[in-house]
């Protein structure tokens, strides 16, 4: 996550410098603040980069920090567009309205949430009920042999749960999709600060299991397929299965604006939802809102 923050920061600085160097164009230049979800930050940066070609007079400063960061910035009125991998809660909407801000939700893509295990782990298939019993409060599945596998390099057999810090959109979505609305996480998971850290830790820890956006997957971790029911079809996470909704834990990704978008913000959002913008999100490993054909 640090890299994203840094990346966003460097980008912002560059944009400011470019903006100042523009001289004559300076007055017509608009800077949009775009902040939030770690899941979306790579895509948001790619969009901002590509949009420079479309409209050179619009600079977009992108930074990450997590969905909670984006949403609290929206509530405090310090961003133009907030990225979020979860819906705003009623409490948050209320707080925004109190500050005279009416957040409007735009779905910009879908993300399959992948389950990650160590590459040596022989597990091929996992069900939602099993995941709930691994992560949920009062967890009953604590060792790998309860799932019928023996993991080489993990002699104690204990399942090491890797999770996220408690305000990340990924954390909140996983809780709602897997544990249900009222069940809490079992305490004692390793709460990483960023999707990349989750994947890094799982990669180096044979006993571990973790979850994160599909876009953070790499060749050093394994992703078992996920079944909704024990006897149901087991679906592997991919852009296609997220798009046709057959994958059980795929979530919409949002951008929030303050009020109905106008002017530059509106043009930017329209461009994001156009084929060109949607091809960028598809290339980054997420599912577009609707099927697009990219060259």
């Amino acid at each position, binding site marked *: 996550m640090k890299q994203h923050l840094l990346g966003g920061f460097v980008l912002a600085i560059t944009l400011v410098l470019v903006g100042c160097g523009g001289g004559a164009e300076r007055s017509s230049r608009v800077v949009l603040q775009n902040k939030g979800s770690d899941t979306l930050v790579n895509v948001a940066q790619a969009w901002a980069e590509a949009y420079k070609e479309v409209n050179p007079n619009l600079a977009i400063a992108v930074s990450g920090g*997590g969905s909670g960061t984006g949403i609290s910035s929206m509530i405090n009125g310090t961003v133009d567009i907030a990225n979020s991998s979860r819906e705003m809660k009623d409490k948050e909407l209320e707080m925004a309205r109190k500050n005279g801000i009416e957040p409007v939700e735009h779905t910009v893509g879908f993300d399959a949430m992948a389950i990650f295990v160590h590459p040596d782990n022989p597990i091929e298939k996992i069900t939602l009920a099993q995941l709930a019993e691994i992560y949920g409060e009062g967890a009953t599945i604590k060792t790998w042999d309860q799932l019928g596998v023996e993991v080489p390099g993990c002699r104690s057999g204990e399942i090491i749960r890797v999770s996220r*810090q408690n305000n990340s959109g990924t954390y909140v979505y996983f809780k709602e999709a897997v544990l249900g609305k009222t069940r809490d996480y079992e305490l004692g998971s390793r709460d990483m600060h960023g999707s990349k850290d989750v994947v890094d830790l799982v990669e180096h820890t044979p006993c571990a299991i973790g979850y994160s956006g599909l876009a953070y997957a790499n060749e050093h971790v394994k992703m078992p397929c996920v079944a909704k029911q024990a006897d149901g079809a087991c679906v592997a996470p991919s852009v296609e299965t997220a798009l046709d909704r057959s994958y059980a834990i795929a979530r919409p990704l949002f951008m929030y604006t303050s009020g109905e978008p106008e002017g530059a913000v509106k043009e930017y959002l329209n461009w994001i939802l156009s084929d060109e913008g949607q091809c960028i999100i598809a290339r980054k490993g997420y599912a577009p809102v609707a099927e697009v054909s990219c060259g």
Partner: protein
Amino acid sequence: MEPQTTDRARSRRERRRGEDRRDRNWYIDKAVQALVFIGGISGILFIIGIFVFITKEGYGFIAETLDIGEFLTSPRWRPTSDHNPTYGALALIAGTTSVTGLAMLVSVPFSLGAAIYIGEFAKGRTRETLKILVELLAAIPSVVWGFIGLSIMNPLIIKTFNVPIGLNVLNSGLILGLMAAPIMTTIAEDALKAVPDTYREAAEALGATKWQVIYRVVLPAGKNGLVAAVLLGVGRGFGETMAVLMASGHSINLPTSVFDSVRALTATIAAELGETAVGSDHYRALFTLGILLFVVTFVINLTADLVVRGIRKK
């Protein structure tokens, strides 16, 4: 300088000082006095300001929502739960304490040893080189230490001890011990240097060996300074954030062995504060953790300071 200082000349000078000439130098003098005064009291103002700020943010929560008994005795830190948020900090306190405790176990013998070697045995070049190296160790940024913990120590601990995960009390305690060692070595060495050489000479004259001199004379004489060094190391451990966040596993857990993952108070604030809405219960709960940390480190540093003052008065 006047060649002769007679009583008359002195009284003339004093008279002149009473009726200051308001020239440029006079104004510069007053301006510098004012600036130095502001500089001098700013430290106090800042510390009061910070204390007022964190208390203001956390106080309403302590008074209204928080159950102090639960806060100090429950290990359930679950501030974002929708239906039943709990604010138990015991696991976090245990995490910070266990990591700092192990760090002290590791670093106290090493830093005192290093201080004794540098202060009593090493001579000339070796001594200077060692001092510089120890101070260089203090200059390594904590995120670099955290990175070492995450990517080098983690797999190493898993392989060596055959445990499921290497991000635990052992990992962060070792890292923190290395981080606290330079400050402790430097202060302990200063304390040993403050022991007058006449003590050593007297002991040697009585036929004491080098070790007897150190053990029976120098260490007892420098006791206060050594205690202060250890306390400042403890303060450093309590306050350290980034390295502990990365190396401890960041897991809410009451540790029963050094191979358990834990979560520290500082790391919890660092990980969660950025994503909470200003003014929410969660936000104010984090400030309550901040107050707790502030009070603990304040007491530790104050004690260390009083102990150091103790030697100076003697």
